[in-house]
């Protein structure tokens, strides 16, 4: 059986298109696994895990992490739930602050701001279902007042705390509040 040149060409083009589509999909899906610096890695450069590390102010040419708002001050804390539950505690005297929890892939897991937190003080406990079950047997006094976030698996991730600077004169007070913020075990 011999194919006509036109038919061969059509088959060739179809094969090219299908193969190109497969390669395109493979390339796009493989990028997340092959990046050299994920956000989770970048955050580690600013200090040890399990404590809030104040990021330098967002200025032209010296952005600590990409895509941050220059009107805000930021503080991050990296944690591994396998090492135990993490308690976030902060009191920041600004009209707006927010905190986002991200997993090691950089996906937002949970987030809240000072209005949805329901109190001026941030006190949030992140732990796995098993750790919560253990904690319930001998609960600390303030467990009722904490925002408790339960995850299925012992995730690794980081928290990013953003605090709005309404005026440069408040910058020092906000720095102090962000440095005093804690991200420790119970």
């Amino acid at each position, binding site marked *: 059986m011999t194919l006509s040149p036109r038919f061969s060409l059509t088959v060739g083009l179809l094969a090219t298109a299908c193969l190109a589509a497969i390669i395109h999909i493979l390339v796009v899906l493989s990028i997340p696994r092959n990046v050299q610096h994920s956000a989770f890695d970048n955050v580690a450069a600013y200090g040890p895990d399990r404590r809030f590390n104040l990021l330098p102010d967002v200025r*032209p040419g010296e952005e600590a992490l990409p895509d941050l708002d220059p009107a805000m001050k930021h503080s991050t804390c990296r944690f591994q739930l396998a090492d135990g539950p993490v308690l976030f505690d902060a009191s920041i005297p600004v009209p707006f602050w927010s905190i986002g929890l991200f997993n090691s892939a950089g996906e937002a897991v949970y987030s809240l701001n000072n209005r949805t937190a329901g109190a001026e003080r941030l006190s949030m406990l992140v732990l796995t279902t098993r750790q919560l079950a253990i904690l319930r047997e001998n609960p600390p006094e303030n467990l009722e007042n904490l925002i408790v976030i339960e995850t299925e698996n012992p995730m690794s991730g980081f928290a990013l705390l953003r605090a709005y600077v309404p005026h440069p004169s408040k910058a020092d007070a906000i720095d102090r509040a962000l440095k005093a913020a804690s991200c420790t075990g119970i």
Partner: protein
Amino acid sequence: MSDASLRPVHGEADWYDDRLPRVLRSYRSNPLRTLAAVTLVVVLAALIGISSAYLIIEREQPLDAVTIGPWHAYPKAGTAEADPYSVAIYTRGAVIPLASGEGLALVAREDSAGHKLDPTCIYRIAGQTPSARLWTLTAVDGRGHLTRTLPGRVNLASNTLLRRADGTFEITAARQPHSGNWLPLAADAKAGDGLRFVLRLYDAPVTTGAALGGVSMPIIDRQGCP
């Protein structure tokens, strides 16, 4: 004596004859040609596949955008429900997204007339934003980096803005100082550096994509270019 008279008379003698339709002719293998064709297909497919993936990722525009005038928002990017393209874009840039409980970021790469934003031009950003407790407007270059400006600041915040009696506002984005609300643009930018406006709405009810349908966003008008 004609050619036809030399042919044998039985029915299958003209098996290799050219008068047969092509599909009935026997296949004469040509390994070199086949190998060349397969190689060409594979190389071409790899080129098209990789370059198309690169172009889409390099554009840094996730696909499932919510568009309001010149503004684009990507509420699902950076969450577990994100599409593979925005996952690739966000992880490649190591971008920490604004989570839904914090706020929503809207990006403009073009003005309201559809022209690409140019840091050497003067723009008027006017109208109103969806309700939010706080919003900031930042000018960045085409790759999302902050740029040096004359006064040093690169953004405007809603709480220091001059507004009209009806709550609308008017912002002039330019390199040189302007009266009223002035958003400084890069002092030493060339037209090719690109420009994006990023409007971040904090604690806004519209952080989910569905609620973004009927809201009004400021328009971006090009006033003039050098």
